[in-house]
């Protein structure tokens, strides 16, 4: 059996810069900021009081009240993004339920539900803890609920690799299709980590920006010399991946082809990236090998670009390691400069952004790159959106725990 080609037929996005794919993409092209003071929880005493929230998102626009009550916000966001991607792809899940699977990654699952239930537990006792605590908290429930909602009965898991969770879900779904285990996959990532414990914990690990609480517009500044950490955000991104044959048979819109996935571990440190970005470079190389292309074929990189001092420096080094002298010629931008860091959703939202870039042959810029950093000396598209010819584009994700994951998409042609 020949390995089937895999294409993208739907993209869904719920982000701090837009409720939905098109709204998010337009905002990114316009360089719009999605970071603002936290409203979802009391934040006055938190070390970081700003975040990227999907502000106009209303769960009951997508779910009935009873279902919505029994799902954490990370599932609400995933359900909404999946609805959008499915609608675009026109995939009829019920017609072939066994042939369609679901893999949606989440870095921290229903942490908001857990915090609420901790308070029930402390204040009212164990007997008052909700029977829905466990099913609302466990991080596989986005994949579970999307399956229940859509009827998809094929391969179904959640991948967790911290901030690379969404990318690894998409990569794993890609491999499921290539090995013939399904005809289509609903895949992506989701996280709703704007909670008190999550902000406090990321701040304590010294990864969050805490220096610009009074200037949210300029707080997320990937590759800028004055960056001081990432901005926590929430969101979800989903793709419909499908074998080319299946997509063509049903006359589906083909947005792009997926051609590569590489995953690696730094095996270095729990929270810091490996020296010189060696692990990230290896993930990119594996993905390039799988895509069977040269580094010089890549026309755009959507960077992990978190805005932490170490990540952006080492990621720059990793791109240089892989692309050599050509590195300076490749436009690279960070969606996190506008969206913030959506944790496990990041890789999936950015995969969606990468696909939109290929479709429009236009990329968004890196916002807030004002003061150049000599350690970050590549073309980060600081001026804003740019028209770029893209045949192949890479989306990188790097997570706590030393997880690295690289996805490669290609402009579709027969």
């Amino acid at each position, binding site marked *: 059996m020949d390995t089937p080609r895999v294409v993208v037929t739907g993209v869904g996005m719920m982000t701090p810069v837009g409720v939905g794919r098109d709204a998010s993409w337009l905002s990114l092209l316009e360089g719009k900021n999605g970071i603002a003071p936290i409203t979802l929880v009391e934040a006055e*005493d938190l070390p970081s009081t700003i975040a990227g929230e999907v502000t106009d998102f209303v769960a009951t626009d997508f779910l009935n009240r009873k279902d919505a009550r029994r799902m954490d916000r990370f599932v609400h966001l995933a359900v909404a993004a999946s609805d959008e991607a499915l609608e675009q792809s026109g995939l009829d899940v019920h017609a072939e339920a*066994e042939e369609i*699977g679901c893999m949606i990654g989440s*870095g*921290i*699952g229903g942490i908001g539900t857990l915090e609420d*239930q*901790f*308070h029930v*537990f*402390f204040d009212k006792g*164990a007997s008052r*803890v909700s*029977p829905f*605590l*466990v*099913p609302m908290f*466990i*991080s*596989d*429930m986005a*994949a579970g609920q999307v*399956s*229940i909602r*859509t*009827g*998809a*009965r*094929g*391969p*179904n*898991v*959640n*991948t967790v*690799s*911290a901030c*690379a*969770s969404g990318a*690894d879900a998409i990569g*794993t779904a890609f*491999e499921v299709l290539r*090995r013939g*285990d399904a005809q289509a996959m609903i895949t992506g990532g989701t996280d709703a980590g704007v909670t008190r*414990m999550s902000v*406090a*914990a990321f701040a*304590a*690990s010294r990864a969050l920006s805490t220096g610009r609480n009074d200037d949210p517009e300029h707080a997320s500044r990937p590759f800028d010399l004055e960056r001081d950490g990432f901005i926590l955000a929430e969101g979800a991104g989903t793709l419909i991946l499908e074998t080319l044959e299946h997509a063509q048979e049903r006359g589906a819109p083909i947005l792009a082809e997926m051609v590569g996935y590489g*995953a*690696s*571990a*730094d*095996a270095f440190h*729990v*929270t810091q990236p490996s020296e010189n970005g060696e692990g990230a470079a290896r993930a990119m190389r*594996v993905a390039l090998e799988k895509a069977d292309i040269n580094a010089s074929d890549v026309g755009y990189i959507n960077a992990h670009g978190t805005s932490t001092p170490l990540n952006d420096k080492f990621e720059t080094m990793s791109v240089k390691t892989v692309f050599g002298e050509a590195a300076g010629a490749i436009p690279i931008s960070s969606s996190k400069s506008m969206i913030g860091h959506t944790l496990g959703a990041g890789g999936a939202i950015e995969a969606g952004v990468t696909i939109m870039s290929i479709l429009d042959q236009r990329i968004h810029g890196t916002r807030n790159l004002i003061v150049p950093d000599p350690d970050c000396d590549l073309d980060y598209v600081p001026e804003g959106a740019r028209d770029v010819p893209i045949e192949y584009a890479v989306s990188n994700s790097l997570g*706590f*725990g*030393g*997880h690295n994951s690289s996805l490669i998409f290609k402009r579709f042609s027969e």
Partner: protein
Amino acid sequence: MPREVVVTGLGMISPVGKNVADGWDSLVAGRSGIGTVTRFDASDYEHPIAGEVDDFDPADYVDAKLRRRIDISTAFAIASAQEAVADAGLEVNAERPGAVGVLLGTGIGGGHLMVEQQRILDEKGPRRVSPFLITSMLPDTATGLVAIALGARGPNFAVTAACATGGAAVGEAAETIARGEAEVMIAGGFEAPLQPIFYAGFNAMKALAVHEDPTQAVRPFDQDRNGFILGEGSGTLILESREHAEARGAEIYARWEGAATSNDAFDMVAAAEDGRGINEAMKRALDRADLTPARIDYINAHGTGTPLNDRVETRAIRDVFGEEADNVMVSSTKSMHGHMMGASGAVEAVICVLACKHGIAPPTINYTTPDPDCDLDYVPNVAREASIEYAMSTSVGLGGHNSALIFGRWGGD
């Protein structure tokens, strides 16, 4: 062509034993590892029953500094990974660190530090929260730490699928080798659900078994079953390409034959009454292994001991196996080690590998009163010697997740 994948090392920490040898002895002897909860003060519960790993001290496996920074679930994962790596005689080749990957799953992740940190957050403020809280609670910290300890730089992530986690992780890891992306994968599942808040959550679901004698509480397939019992621990398998294992002269336990996951697409808690989810996973795993149901000699069932699960699972086995269903041995080792959530599928995969190797099907204990709805050969109460060419492990989880794994006896061919 997908490559052949073999099993060259095992690790198991469970309520029936702190290592593979002790655990297997207990299972073959039909000894229960279920007792009274001691991990936390559970005196408010009428029947505080659980499967705990006795005398587990993380300090036996990690240094003092790391011990303070990780959740006990992560310590379980590291401990069983160490046993499996040693068992396989695996050394990560410095020239090809990317050839070895790690894929460990957990259903819940680390929660022990969270309770304490929630109190600190509430009482002392967010600036007093531990810098290690994030890594202690993320479900993928164990995969990162095992990779760091070994220098394993290949594919690395966690998988979660509720109670089907362990099986899903082992299956995905095997596929990573089959498609040539790694030579060796350290694969498995781990869980430490015996925490006050999660115990309270499961208790509120009214899913936990109740019995005067804890050792008789889990009664899979028995007429008088009334729920499951939470267990803790970890199972790890060293999966390896056959080529790589033979080249380094590794001892081979069994062959990985196939795996699959599926979803009921029905309900977030209850299994579909017609067994339509788990039967899909079993059928797909058989397809992947290119085997007919008649070739399977032993099924290590999910068999939680809840009235619904055991009935649905029996129906699904009948559906997939047809007339052959009466000829296959089906046992639930959860009758002895309890429901280890995300660890279950991995521990039961270890048990299937051992069943193939030793030609012994471990029993379903506490089976005294047959249930007309559960009418298969459950290997009641006493282990059975039998040639086991192929063994299947099935897992079913909250959220409709299902997984099935198949291993084959290693005959050197």
